[in-house]
């Protein structure tokens, strides 16, 4: 019977059945299910109301919760710091890697992806240890240089913990963006570059008129990708600071975890997830438009 199906269809089934089932079961369905759950009352502390449809009740609860406004501000500040640095940093590094005359370029190319390859738990652990209150490297250096008199508990202090999160996050996320830019740079037609040399363009004009124009599509992609990941930054932060001190680094995605597994209000957790997902989705639409823009070339 299998033989009676046309070859093309058979190929499609063989190739797509397994991955598509996985994706639909574990990715697509959960998203839809999650959105559904967000409209139900699923608070363990209210057993009699379990599974009741309450419309936007969960959303209202979340928006008016003690943490929402505060965490959104923290998240916003975090993104404000992290997103520009990653975008501009990865742009400059990829340009640097691209210069064939630059003798450091090959070594840079070799090591630049290492932070991305390492499991982020390991990243977080290393950074925690470097800033450790008792044995950390940073304490040791600053002490030796006489800048501080006593070892500080960097992770225990609000703004320094915030800064450490920023540092570690950039360290982890930057390489991938470098990769994206670098790949695009490789496809820059040599002609255009050389023509700009003959036409007399100096470093700045070359950057502005040749590189930037060519990178524009990827710049958009990287921007949206970085933004998306920044607003949902969670895993890395969780391991480094656990959200502390005193929720100072508990960005908004944190509270999904807290609502769901600590407060045990699954409905609220689902609602918050949906909110962040929608926020992300809006950006994804922009992302899609940028893909179209790339295609049109």
């Amino acid at each position: 019977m299998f033989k009676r199906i046309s070859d093309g269809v058979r190929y499609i089934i063989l190739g797509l059945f397994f991955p598509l089932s996985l994706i639909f079961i574990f990715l697509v369905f959960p998203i839809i299910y999650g959105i559904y759950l967000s409209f139900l009352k699923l608070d363990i502390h209210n057993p009699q109301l379990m599974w009741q449809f309450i419309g936007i009740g969960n959303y209202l609860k979340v928006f008016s919760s003690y943490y929402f406004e505060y965490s959104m501000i923290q998240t916003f500040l975090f993104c404000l710091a992290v997103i520009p640095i990653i975008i501009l940093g990865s742009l400059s590094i990829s340009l640097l890697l691209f210069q064939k005359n630059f003798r450091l370029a090959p070594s840079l190319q070799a090591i630049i992806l290492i932070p991305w390859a390492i499991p982020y738990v390991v990243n977080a652990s290393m950074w925690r240890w470097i800033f450790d209150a008792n044995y950390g490297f940073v304490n040791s250096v600053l002490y030796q240089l006489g800048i501080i008199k006593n070892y500080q508990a960097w992770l225990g202090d609000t703004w320094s913990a915030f800064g450490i999160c920023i540092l570690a996050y950039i360290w982890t996320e930057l390489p991938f963006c470098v990769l994206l830019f670098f790949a695009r740079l490789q496809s820059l037609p040599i002609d255009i570059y050389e023509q700009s040399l003959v036409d007399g363009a100096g470093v700045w004009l070359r950057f502005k008129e040749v590189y930037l124009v060519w990178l524009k599509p990827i710049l958009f992609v990287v921007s949206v990708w970085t933004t998306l990941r920044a607003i949902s930054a969670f895993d890395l932060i969780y391991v480094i600071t656990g959200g502390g001190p005193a929720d100072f680094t508990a960005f908004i995605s944190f509270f999904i975890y807290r609502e769901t597994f600590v407060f045990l209000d699954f409905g609220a957790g689902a609602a918050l997830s949906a909110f962040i997902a929608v926020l992300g989705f809006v950006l994804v639409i922009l992302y899609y438009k940028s893909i179209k823009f790339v295609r049109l070339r």
Partner: protein
Amino acid sequence: MRNINGLVVKVVAWIFGIFIIVWTVFPIYWAINVSLMNEIDVLMKPALYVPIRPTIESYWIIFNIKEAMVGARPGSTFFIPQAAASILPTLTNSLIVAITVMIINIVFGPIASHIFYTVKFSKSNILFWIIVLTRLMPLAALLLPIFVIFKILNLFNSLLGLVLIYSALTLPISIWISYINFEGFPTECEEAALVDGYSRLEIYYKIAFPLIKPIIATVALFSFIFAYGEFFLAMLLTSSDVARTLPVIISSIVGTYHALPSMVMATVVIGMAPPLIVFILARKYVIRGIIYYTGQR
């Protein structure tokens, strides 16, 4: 070909480049450094930058762990955390899961995008975009639903469960990466083979597959790194060493007060090693892989 004119630019570039190298390599160096220090040296203030009395004590303990070794150590303020006993088993689990996910991605990733690229069936575009877009949702949105699904399918605390969910999360990106690199692919060869009577499946693994080796390498590297390093879902969805993966243990050890520092860092180093090894092996192909077809005109 790509010149850097201007001495100022050159100097800035070198400073920046060296900064990047130090910034990338340093945390790793520090972890190795501490992992080799005996417990007295570790406490030195200011910290030692090179282990003057290096010891592989921690590594030895990890690889030869016995129940008796866990717990307080005579004459020292540090102790060996219980979790240390789990390092080897979870390392094995991580490797099994990572390799399996990698294989699944290699087998099903490129072939899916090949299907999307060559066999254009109705609604294939929509399907493709669903696959890619869903992956762009923040992971936090999926926590609860996946939890529920795992419960329903009885996949808790199983390596199979992890393999399935990781595959679902990595396949979309593998498909996307492969698809981008199919631009410029010589479809004429395949069309000729079709006319000659080959079935599409044969065409795929005899013609297409050998040509996209760089893509395979990229996909393999990416999926391995993801599956190996994923922490949060592993933490949520496993409850014992039967299925637990290394990142969970690392986070537990790192968070343990007064755990033997060299052991903590040794765990971190061991955690880093497999992906770094895979990375070094695949590096040649990865850089080529992403640029392989975008580099052609």
